Each structure stands twice: as C-alpha cells, then as structure tokens.
C-alpha cells in the first residue's frame, strides 16, 4: 500500500508530501504519524506540503486533526511551504486552520521547532544526535 514516509530527526519528525493526497492516504498518514509520535516521543512534527498542488476540505481537516492529535501527544506541529493557490483555496473553503503553526520553508519551520523545544528545555536530546 502507498505510504508517505516519516523521517526522524532527533526529537522531530519530518513528513514530506510529494504525491497527490487522496483521502485514504491522508488517513494512513494520520495513523502512522500518531503511532510514530507516541513511539519515539517526538517533540515536534514538520509537514512539508510545498509539492501539494490540490487540496480539498477533507485534506484540510485531516491536517488540522493531525495537528490537534500531535498536541495531545505533546508534539508541536508546523506546516511549511504552502502554495499560494492552496492557501487561497483553504481560505475560500472557510478553513483557516487556526490551531496550526505555519512557516515559509523547511528551514524556518525547523528553526521554529528548535525554539519551542528550547523554550521547554528539551533541546539537549536533539543536540546529542547519537542516541
């Protein structure tokens, strides 16, 4: 079955969506990601959607759900690289995704995750990458 890979970078999880999201794939990602967060005790999740061209209300809601679930599991979620067309579509659909942090690109998204992790005093785990 088709899956979206979830990469681990220390305390953070990195998800890059490079295929067209369909409903089943989104739900699989939701399952995999929550399982992985709980498994590794991740403090942050970065979802890169810069290659995502088409979005509908279901995908939008799944993204919001993933962010809420991650927060329950004590991980910050940041969505990066949203295309202008996707942003306009989501706004027109009335989905402003209020709970989700966003960033322009992976770099500033990672910076944000580091900052929040540092604020909670958890960053030493990441720096000791060797674990």
């Amino acid at each position: 079955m088709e899956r979206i890979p979830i990469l681990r970078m220390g305390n953070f999880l990195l998800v890059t969506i490079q295929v067209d999201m369909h409903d089943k794939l989104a739900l699989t990602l939701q399952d995999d990601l929550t399982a992985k967060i709980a498994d590794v005790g991740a403090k942050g999740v970065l979802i890169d959607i810069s290659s995502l061209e088409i979005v509908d209300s279901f995908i939008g809601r799944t993204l919001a759900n993933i962010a809420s679930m991650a927060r329950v599991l004590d991980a910050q979620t940041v969505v990066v690289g949203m295309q202008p067309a996707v942003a306009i579509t989501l706004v027109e659909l009335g989905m402003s995704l209020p709970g989700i942090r966003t960033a322009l690109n992976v770099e500033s998204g990672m910076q944000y995750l580091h900052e929040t992790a540092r604020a909670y005093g958890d960053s030493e785990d990441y720096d000791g990458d060797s674990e």
Partner: protein
Amino acid sequence: MAKVFDVVRKKQDVVLDGWLQGIKGGIRRRDLIDERELKSQASEVLSALCAAPPDASLEDLNIAAWQPLKDLLASLSASRAVQGFTPSETALFVLSLKAPLFSIARDQKGENADQLYAEITAIDDFVDKLALHTTDSFIHGRDQVIVRQQEEMLELSTPVVTLWDGIVALPLIGTLDSARTQVVMESLLQAIVQTNSRFAIIDITGVPTVDTLVAQHLLKTITAARLMGAECILSGIRPQIAQTIVHLGINLEDVITKAKLSDAFKLALERSGRTVTRVAKGSASVLSGAREL
C-alpha cells in the same frame, strides 16, 4: 435621395453657415472646442454628406453609400467623448443641421404644402437617424474610456514592494471589491513565495472606507498569508476607520494592527531580530564609507 441635397451640393457654404449658427445657439462649451475646429468638423461632415451618390436612399442608413459619413460621425463623437462633451451636446451638433435643410426645402417647395411636408419628413427622419448613430458612437467611445480606466486601475492597484530582506509591503489604494481582492491576494502571496518573506505589511491608508465586506476580504488575505507561514501586519488605519471597524463589530483581534506604516515596519524589523540605530555624529562612518566607494 431628396431633391434638397442637390441644392445643398451647390450651396454648401450657405448650409454650413446656417448649421454653425444653429450649433452656436445651443452650445455652451466653447472651452472644449474652438470655432475654427467646429467649422472644419462641420464642413467635413457636409462634404461626406454631399459625396454620397445622388440616388442613395435616405430611409436606410445601413447601405454602403452612407458608410463614410457614419465612420466620420463615429470618430468625431468618440473624440468628443474623450474631450468631455455631454451626449446631448454631441447629438445637438448633428440635429442643428435640420434648420438649414428645412429652409432650403421651403425655398424650393414653399408653394406645395404636400410636397414640402413629404420632403421635411424625409429629411427629419434622416437627420434623426444620423443623430442617433452619433449618440450611439459617443456612448460606445465613453464605454471604452471606462473599460480602459478600469483595467489601468486594476494594474495600478496591486504593487507589492520589498521594504527589506524578508519584509514586503502592499499599499492598497481605492475600494476593495471581490475581483480586486482576488488580484491583490494572488500578487501578495506570489510575492511572499518569491521573496521568501516572513512579514507582509498591508497598508490601507488609501482605502477610503472599510465596511464588513472589505474587512472580510482583508481578513481572507491575512489568513491566506498566515497559512503560507508569513505574518501579516495591518497598517494605515485612520481614526475614522478604527471607529467604523468597532461600530460594525468587525473582529480584528487576531490581526496585528498599527496606525502607521512606519510602526508596522519597525515591528517587522524587531521581530526579525533587527534594530535601527542612529549613527553617532562624530564617527560619520556612513559618509566616509560612501566616499571611499
């Protein structure tokens, strides 16, 4: 074609004088057109009228014989639309031709009331059709002016300027409607992607009124920018507009708002970890540095 026009051909000068008298009687816009130009326009029209073949029918303006005359009137009225004449003034220009033509008809057929009546009715109909055609072209010309201005406004209204590395500004001028919001939103988001900007300042100093619809459009743009990972600052809110926003119950609590563009710029600089300081007078490093370059 009525017999009158045979006479007109012979007595073009007389008709022209009579016509100009009529135009001057009705016209009040000497500031827009001088007498010499008016005369040359009138004589052009008269020549075009006389150049039509003698057997051309007065009843149908759509035949080929009248095409040069129609084209001339169309171009005249289009230029008048640009100059700022009113439709009635433009129509009057053509309608004033009736009086001299009627007087010629009376000179010819004054004895025979039936023939005079038929002649005058034919001329009357013909000149009316010409006047209607002129008014149509006038309005068409004015429509074109309006369309062109709308296009220009749409282009003018959406410049996204880069204030600093990572900070873009969008100075909005004029009322926001749905079509403009779409253009504004697209160009702002595109600029955010291209310049990799974390901050976008929307300045509404030039927006005359903010009602619920405009506010909704602004909020949409701000939300879309936030979704892409850029922070939006709304600036240039005048006191009256602040009052209107509160009276209308528009919720701008989630949006950073500043009174002036400079305040918004300062905040964006601070948030991106920069400060602006004044160079000490003694050191003058800026000036000397510039000279060395």
